[in-house]
């Protein structure tokens, strides 16, 4: 049975590619793609990273920051939504419902042109960064972005974090509500205060329960980060589109980009599964 299934998948895939080959009269030019990852400077003999690799690292940076901030936002909002006062619950609901009912693309554009133009740009982060020492600029470029990109990058990170935070909030809220009332009562009877019960008993259990949906959300953050290409963040999709505009190697570049995203998301999902397994053995 397994054999049959595998066979059918292979047939379907080869049929797809053979059809594609006959419908698409396309002049494949894969040979120039590696050069867009890295190239050797003919004069100095040194290797330099090129657009695709730079975009790849930008996507990683963007995803890490957005996930981190989104996780923080989502956890706070989720805790407020599950066990907060009525006002706290209202704020949490307002946040989640507003964000979840706006298309992510619209949110990113609105945030970039309206909100960040008023608040972030007036901070003049780029000017501040330009006046710092070379070494500090290098460090910032490694963890955030260079002076030319920093304003846009920060606003993209925040927009993405707000977006992901709303979904994480719902996951966390569900996790907390899923802990049976008996756990609360048991720990009160042991003399723990309400906040202590929440932090030491309920929250750790809630996070263990929602580890898988959370991992799924982290993976979607990586994929969602592609939408910030509309505000011209130099991440993987944007770099790819720029390359396509310059070279017209449409399919080679889209396929390469897909593979790069896959490498990121797949390795994340595998390592999450590994951590999950280790964690379950601990108890």
């Amino acid at each position, binding site marked *: 049975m397994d054999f049959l299934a595998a066979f059918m998948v292979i047939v379907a895939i080869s049929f797809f590619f053979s059809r594609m080959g006959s419908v698409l*009269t396309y002049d494949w030019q894969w040979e120039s793609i590696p050069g867009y990852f890295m190239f050797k400077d003919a004069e100095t003999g040194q290797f*330099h990273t090129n*657009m695709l690799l730079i975009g790849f690292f930008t996507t990683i940076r963007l995803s890490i920051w957005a996930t981190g901030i989104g996780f923080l936002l989502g956890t706070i909002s989720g805790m407020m939504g599950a066990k907060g006062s009525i006002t706290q619950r209202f704020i949490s609901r307002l946040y989640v419902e507003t964000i979840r009912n706006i298309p992510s693309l619209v949110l990113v554009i609105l945030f970039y042109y309206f909100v960040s*133009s008023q608040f972030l740009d007036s901070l003049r982060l780029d000017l501040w960064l330009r006046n710092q020492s070379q070494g500090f600029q290098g460090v910032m470029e490694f963890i955030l972005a260079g002076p*030319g990109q920093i304003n846009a990058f920060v606003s993209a990170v925040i927009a993405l974090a707000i977006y992901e935070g709303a979904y994480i909030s719902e996951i966390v809220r569900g996790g907390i509500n899923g802990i049976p009332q008996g756990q609360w009562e048991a720990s009160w009877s042991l003399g723990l205060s309400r906040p202590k019960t929440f932090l030491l008993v309920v929250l750790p259990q809630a996070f263990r329960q929602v580890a898988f949906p959370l991992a799924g959300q982290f993976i979607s953050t990586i994929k969602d980060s592609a939408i910030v290409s509309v*505000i011209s963040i130099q991440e993987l999709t944007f770099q790819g*589109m720029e390359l396509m*505009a*310059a070279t017209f190697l*449409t399919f080679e570049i889209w396929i390469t980009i897909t593979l790069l995203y896959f490498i990121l998301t797949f390795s994340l999902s595998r390592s999450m599964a590994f951590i999950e397994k280790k964690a379950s053995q601990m108890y």
Partner: protein
Amino acid sequence: MKKLCYMFLATLLLFGYSIALAGDTGSQLSRESIIEKIQKEGVIRVGMSTFVPWAMKDKKGQLIGFEIDVAKKLAQDMGVEIEFIPTAWSGIIPALLTGKFDVIIGGMGITPTRNLKVNFTMPYDFSGMSLVAHQKKANGFSKIEDFNKKEVTIAARMGTTAEQAARKFMPKAEIKLFENESQALQELNLGRVHAVVSSAPMPVFHALKYPDKLFVPLKENFTKEPIGFAIQKGDYDALNYFNNWILNMHSQGFLKEKKTYWFESKKWESLVK
């Protein structure tokens, strides 16, 4: 429940107010001339978008092209550093208005509609629209009228003067719009559209690349349009500076020389691929 509704409404109003406020920031920013700002900060931020051969990335990831040479020369003459901000074409004017960069040097055609939103300098170049067509689909087409039929499909890049030209000269044809030129050309190579409208000289270059599939039906460009720098409205200082800089470059022959290199030769092609 009623209370909740009121709170929700109040929050929405606050959000709306902040958007309304955002409209003001653009005009506030332009009170100080960008020329002074550029001098003070020692850097000019230029908004552009990839358009072969106006601006594109070479094999080493460096920006090259006609616009890039113009902008670099401008920065050199002002004695400041240059920073290019590649921006998606459809969002380039809002980005200028919200101060994401100082000036658009991106092969932007001067049109009355755009001019209502931004100020343009005098033209530093003239461009024109041209067509590249699919040999089988557009067999025998040789005039612009041949393309102005209901059954004809034309592809162009969204928000460009190419789109406007296509709508004006081929109102009966169906227009298909794409975010990037490469997607429009891909559609043409697949034979799903009859022709692609784009700024010269790209259509000719593209036809030369696929001589067995594509051809150039019109011998001459069917429009002529002025190309200028775009800046935020009301900055006469900057307009004056840029206009005179352009005037100088015209008389020094710099623009002509660069135009010959990028638009009439293909010497640069080995830099890209």
